[in-house]
């Protein structure tokens, strides 16, 4: 059996989370809006209108280019890509063709198996999205709301070797996009869309064979599966002595199958030319420097630092760098806590994450601020409350938006360390449970746990467990 490897390049379309569209002042995000309610003469391509570039789109595009280590071009151009389609109201798409905003770059992709795949970026360009066409009962409906939504198309070199790698890239890309704040990167809402170019070759070979292009793979599972299926198909074809033809394939998410859309040979000539309605996009060197400097520490770098600096496990560091807000939260809490990183890490990965999920909040939206979390952990450390009270405090602080110490005081959650009070309670428990007392005295010493449970129940968990145990043993053994 011959050993093949897949050679895969990805084209991703990333919807930038700007306030307004790329060439007009309609709001960019129309999710949930009625069709054609978020349009104007410009984005619906009326006669006589002109595009004006949204500077925020250029800024976010440049920021992404910087994050991918791409060269931000000081001069880039917009071009027209001409074709007819009902959801393309001008009959051309304004895009960047041969001189895009970002060229080159790379992404070092860590795989769960432990190796890292170096993915080279070919280019990033800015463009406008088209509208949506729906066919209902043989009638065609067009919604222009999405026309003019700013996109970055980012193209990789053919550096992936499996569907798993491609899928993992999307996971990491999604994380990065949210991290640097350029896209909501919600694949279900089409913020991050993907096409894949797939070919195969003998392992060890350097040639690039004829590729097929898979369109519309818009979930991470779909990327993994579509590429795997296509790779299998190509291997079978070659094994059977057939040639791979340069098809465009459409991924059908419902059936999980690939359909042939067209042969490459019949593809349109888009007759690209410079968009005369827009000036060249000129970015001053100082501006470019500023963009680069404004880039935060990126997730994978931060993950590594958490391992190195705080001696956290890869697993914990991964969770803590899920998103930027959470990792900021971790570091802030740790700063206030001034103790073991692992302790704060555990609180976050075990308890805080549950709250975030339950409330569907981001870490920076919590009323339970890093400072308050640190305070709760410190209260436990100093024996002022026990761990279970501490855990219950998380929710209370979040709900009440109050200092944990304040809540402990008000609700009397502090541990009962009053020996007299505990002794009186223990005496009453012994008096009320003669059978258990007898069993204990006859040698069933394991019942101490049951007695301790009674004390805790009656004190609402606030009794200092050490003290309670000591008094219980003393009084039980006296008999």
């Amino acid at each position, binding site marked *: 059996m011959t050993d093949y490897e897949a050679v895969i390049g990805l084209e991703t379309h990333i919807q930038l989370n700007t306030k307004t569209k790329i060439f007009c002042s309609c709001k960019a995000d129309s999710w949930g809006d009625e069709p054609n309610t978020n349009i104007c003469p410009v984005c619906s391509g009326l006669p*006589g*209108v*002109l595009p004006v570039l949204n500077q925020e789109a250029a800024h976010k595009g440049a920021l992404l280019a910087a994050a991918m280590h791409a060269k931000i071009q000081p001069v880039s151009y917009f071009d027209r890509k001409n074709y007819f389609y009902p959801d393309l109201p001008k009959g051309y798409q304004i895009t960047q063709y041969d001189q895009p905003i970002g060229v080159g770059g790379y992404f070092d992709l860590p795989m769960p198996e432990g190796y890292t795949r170096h993915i080279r970026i070919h280019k990033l360009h800015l463009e406008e999205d088209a509208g949506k066409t729906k066919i209902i009962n043989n009638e065609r409906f067009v919604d222009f709301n999405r026309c003019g939504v700013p996109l970055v198309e980012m193209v990789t070199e053919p550096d992936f070797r499996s569907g798993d790698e491609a899928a993992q890239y999307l996971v990491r890309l999604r994380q990065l996009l949210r991290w640097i704040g350029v896209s909501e990167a919600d694949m279900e809402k089409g913020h991050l869309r993907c096409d894949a170019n797939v070919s195969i070759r003998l392992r060890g070979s350097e040639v690039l064979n004829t590729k097929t292009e898979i369109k519309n793979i818009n979930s991470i599972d779909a990327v993994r599966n579509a590429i795997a299926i296509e790779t299998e198909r190509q291997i079978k074809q070659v094994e059977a002595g057939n040639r791979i033809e340069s098809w465009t394939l459409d991924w059908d998410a419902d059936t999980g199958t690939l359909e042939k859309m067209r042969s490459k040979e019949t593809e349109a000539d888009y*007759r690209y*030319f410079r968009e005369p309605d*827009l000036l060249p996009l000129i970015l001053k060197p100082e501006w470019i420097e500023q963009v680069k400097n404004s880039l935060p520490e990126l997730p994978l770098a931060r993950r590594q630092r958490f391992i190195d600096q705080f001696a956290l496990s890869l697993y914990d560091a991964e969770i803590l760098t899920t998103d930027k807000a959470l990792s900021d939260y971790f570091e802030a809490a740790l700063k206030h806590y001034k103790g073991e990183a692992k302790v704060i890490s555990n609180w976050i990965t075990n308890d805080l994450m549950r709250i975030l999920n339950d409330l569907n909040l981001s870490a920076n939206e919590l009323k339970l601020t890093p400072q308050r979390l640190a305070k709760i952990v410190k209260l436990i450390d100093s024996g002022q409350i026990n761990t279970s009270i501490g855990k219950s405090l998380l929710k209370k602080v979040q709900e009440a938006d109050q200092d944990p110490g304040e809540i402990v005081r008000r609700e009397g959650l502090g541990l009962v360390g009053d020996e007299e009070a505990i002794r009186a309670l223990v005496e009453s428990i012994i008096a009320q449970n003669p059978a258990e007392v007898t069993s204990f005295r006859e040698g069933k010493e394991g019942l101490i746990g049951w007695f301790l449970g009674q004390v805790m129940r009656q004190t609402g968990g606030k009794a200092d467990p050490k003290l309670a145990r000591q008094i219980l043993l003393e009084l039980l053994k006296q008999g």
Partner: protein
Amino acid sequence: MLELSAYETIEKIRTRELTAKQVLEAHLDHIKKVDGVPGKLDFGELSEPEAKKVHAFITLTEDLAYQQAEEVDRQLDNGIAPGILAGAPITVKDIFCVKDTLTTAGSRILSNFKAPYTATSVNRLQKAGGVILGKVNLDEFTYGSSSESSAFKPCPHNPWDTTRVTGGSSGGSTASVAAYEAALSLGTDTGGSIRQPAAFCGVVGLKPTYGRVSRYGLIAFGSSLDCPGPVARSVKDAALMLQAMAGADPRDSTASNRPVPDYLSALQKDIRGMRIGLSPDYFRNSMPDLETGEIIYEPIQKEIEQAIYDSAQVLANLGAEIVEDVPMPNTIHGVSVYFVISRVEAASNLHRFDGVKYGYRTGKDVSDLHDLYRLTRVEGLGHQPKLRILMGMYVSAAQYSAQYYQRALKVRRMIRDDFEGIFDKKGSYHLDALLTPTTPSTAFELGAVYGNTVMMQCADQFTVPANHAGIPGISIPAGFDQTGLPIGIQLLGPDYREDLIMRIGHAYEQATQTADWRKAKPQVVRELEE
């Protein structure tokens, strides 16, 4: 009243000698007498009386005009200063969007299109107190030099001789101003479409620097070439109108942010010491041999050549320095380059007219989307748009683009370099302006050239270089040929120096104010008086 300049009319309205409404009514009344039937689709035979009319209009916007005129009068009643165009009657080439008004581009495909917004230039004219009388005819989508290709017939007729073309594509604009139907008109110039018909109709036509006037709301032909500009009966009126329109526009990123100078006060200065060039490359008619592609040179119309020398003498007498033999070697490539660049942009700009969103849609049963597009465009677009789509698609196709489109861009740069060279302050010519004929001939007969696209395009050979270069140019009347047809002379200047070329033009007008030829009146007006 009709023969007053816009400047004088505005003065009389401001001083309450006339009301804006009176001015409007006089013009509407005159339009009814001289214009004839407005342009419409599927027009039949032209009757003999109608053949003698101007036919400038497609749509008369009477209601809008009354609103505007009454507003100006109301402002004056209340002591509010009206804008600089207070009450000036203006026509607008039907290529500009005007809110809730039919905006046809002279094409069947937009024959039912009412724009939901108003073009920046029109908006500024209105804000300045201009009274918009209506939308005037043009070549379909501005594609032509005679205004004969409009789908709305009859096409405009030359007011000086109604058997002649107005020129184009702003033929309705120049005809309406020449025939006193309006004092001013808003036209567009992509390859000469303001200056060439201005020359043919004996009026002033200014193509501003590319970017001086916003293109927002102008239905695009060649986006890198299109310039909205004024048509008027004097340079001063053109200056006034440019003043109202020029300047930055947040809706057009190619509109310049440069401050707009005071054009009227610039006219006050004399032209002593100004250096005005004459180029032999503008004194010959060059046409490609359609078989061999070789360029054939012919002399231009003698009377036009003479008019240039005569006007140069007038300017010299005013103290200007005339510099002869200025080489402009790339002038001959203007039309060829235009054939490529404007067509590529036009084909792309026409893509949006697909019958999906607005405008004409085929009434036939269509089996699929492709059919809808094909039939809509086959039926909705005329001959010129189709030719230009074919040409534009061809020269920008992946396999031909380097040979044609990319090459044309390089030659365009060379044309620009010609101008940069002669206007360079440190160069050997350091000119303030170049004086040239506007056209190789005076207005030709209706039907004489129409149908020969190459010949028609050659009518623009002296105007098109300014569009490639982006520089301003103005055509001003300078007499008549033997048959009584107007002759236009052209002044070309450096970027954003509309003030310079208008100053020269104004000086020329002042110096020739008493010339006999200035007393001539257009045929349509003469006949009315007789």
